[in-house]
């Protein structure tokens, strides 16, 4: 299993570890509910160095990414970022990505750890025929540290030479944090304000300690357990659960991310990988749809549990992610469900989940489950 540059820091903090995408990552340091609440109420610090960073540079960097991904990157303003998907020719999702535009001819694509090599391979295939564009897998050069929570800016600002109030959500800037050159993105996977700090791997331990010290009692180191419940409450997908090669963006509720109508003068004649399949999928009702469910009590509908129409005997869906929401206090879940009975997809509809042999009612609702007060 691979380790991040912060493995020793995690060990020193008494972390428990788990295998995530081939990486030995902290699942929690202490109580994962405390970690979850720290991010909602104050701040949490996550090592997400397992994520993949791929730099795309050159005159045709934008045109290449437009062709390779479903959401055109040449439309991103410099210093801004966009959520994106990379699909195959069948329109299935290879990975979900964030694309940051660092400069006119320079982009940083952040992919999931477990999909790093699939994404790089797909991009390398798609770059054929393009000139003046360079693809560099920089994943091993970067540590990525997420500082998340309502006081994240208060912790980071005193250390940072740039004014963070000018850094909007889904934007990125070059900065110097206590002498360390970094890229600071105002992005995250928790539903809170926060930053993802791209740190040269040689400075990883220094940056981690710097932030922990600066945060003091306002900040807890947080593992993947709390990261998962935080992102679930925020209604964000996890690749391998809500997104995978078995599903397309329309089933997953990401129709808006797919830009079918392109400028014919975009350098690709308006074409992109998967376009034909995605156009066909967009014109039909998806056979299954990702829905949000809430329950009562404390028993969570978990990944893999089957769903039924009330009293039904045949499974009509399956839970992709589920947990007792630490913030809300009741069970929440995301699930794929057949669209054959459209009434079951509507907010307020009742669906039953089989929790290890007993049926429990759940109500269909809208994402996200949790939205921060601004």
């Amino acid at each position, binding site marked *: 299993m691979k380790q991040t540059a912060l493995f020793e820091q995690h060990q020193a903090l008494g972390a*428990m570890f788990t295998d995530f995408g081939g990486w030995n990552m902290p*699942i*929690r340091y202490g*109580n*994962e*509910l405390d970690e979850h609440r720290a991010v909602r109420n104050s701040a949490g610090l996550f090592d997400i160095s397992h994520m993949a960073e791929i730099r795309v540079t050159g005159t045709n960097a934008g045109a290449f990414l437009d062709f390779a991904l479903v959401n055109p990157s040449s439309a991103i303003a410099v210093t801004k970022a966009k959520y994106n998907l990379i699909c195959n020719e069948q329109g299935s999702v290879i990975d979900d990505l964030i694309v940051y535009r660092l400069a006119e001819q320079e982009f940083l694509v952040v992919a999931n750890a477990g999909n790093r090599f699939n994404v790089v391979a797909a991009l390398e295939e798609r770059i054929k025929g393009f000139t003046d564009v360079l693809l560099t897998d920089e994943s091993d050069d970067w540590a990525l540290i997420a500082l998340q929570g309502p006081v994240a800016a208060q912790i980071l600002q005193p250390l940072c030479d740039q004014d963070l109030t000018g850094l909007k959500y889904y934007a990125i800037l070059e900065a110097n944090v206590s002498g360390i050159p970094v890229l600071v993105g105002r992005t995250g996977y928790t539903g809170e304000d926060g930053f993802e700090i791209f740190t040269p791997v040689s400075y990883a331990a220094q940056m981690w300690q710097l932030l922990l010290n600066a945060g003091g009692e306002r900040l807890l180191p947080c593992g993947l*357990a709390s990261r*998962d*419940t935080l992102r679930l409450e925020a209604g964000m997908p996890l690749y391998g659960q809500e997104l995978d090669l078995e599903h397309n963006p329309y089933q997953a509720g990401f129709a808006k991310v797919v830009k079918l109508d392109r400028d014919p003068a975009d350098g690709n004649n308006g074409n992109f990988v998967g376009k034909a399949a995605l156009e066909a999928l967009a014109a039909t009702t998806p056979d299954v749809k990702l829905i949000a469910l809430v329950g009562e*009590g*404390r*028993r*969570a509908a*978990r990944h893999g549990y089957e769903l039924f129409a009330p009293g039904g005997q045949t499974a009509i869906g399956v839970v992709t992610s589920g*947990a*007792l929401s*630490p913030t809300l206090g009741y069970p929440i879940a995301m699930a794929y469900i057949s669209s054959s009975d459209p009434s079951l997809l509507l907010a307020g509809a009742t669906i039953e989940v089989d929790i*290890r042999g007993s049926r429990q009612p759940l109500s269909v609702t809208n994402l996200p489950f949790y939205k921060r007060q601004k």
Partner: protein
Amino acid sequence: MANPTNLQYSKEHEWVRIEGDTAVVGITQYAANALGEVVYVDLPKVGSSTVFMKICGEVESTKSVSELYSPISGEVIEVNDGLTSNPEDINGDPFGTGWLFKVKYSELPDLMDSAAYDALTGEA
């Protein structure tokens, strides 16, 4: 986290405390730590029978569901109702307020003493 010397232990990480013909059952600190924060516990019903090393309930944490194996055969005479509203007691005080249920037993199974359990879980 010392495993109390007055308890006996199963290989599935339950503990038993003998009080006359009654056995109090819980899970160990080691098990609670491995599970993470317990958010729900399903206990056997009062009046039901438990069988040594058979499943008698489940313990659910934020990240996982684990089956509960009874470390002793007998009849359930009391369950810890406080866990319904405070399942986190299992993490906070697994050998005390986080106890799970009590059984009336007739035969003591072969369980580990604290030294053997320390060895199993790598406690010095």
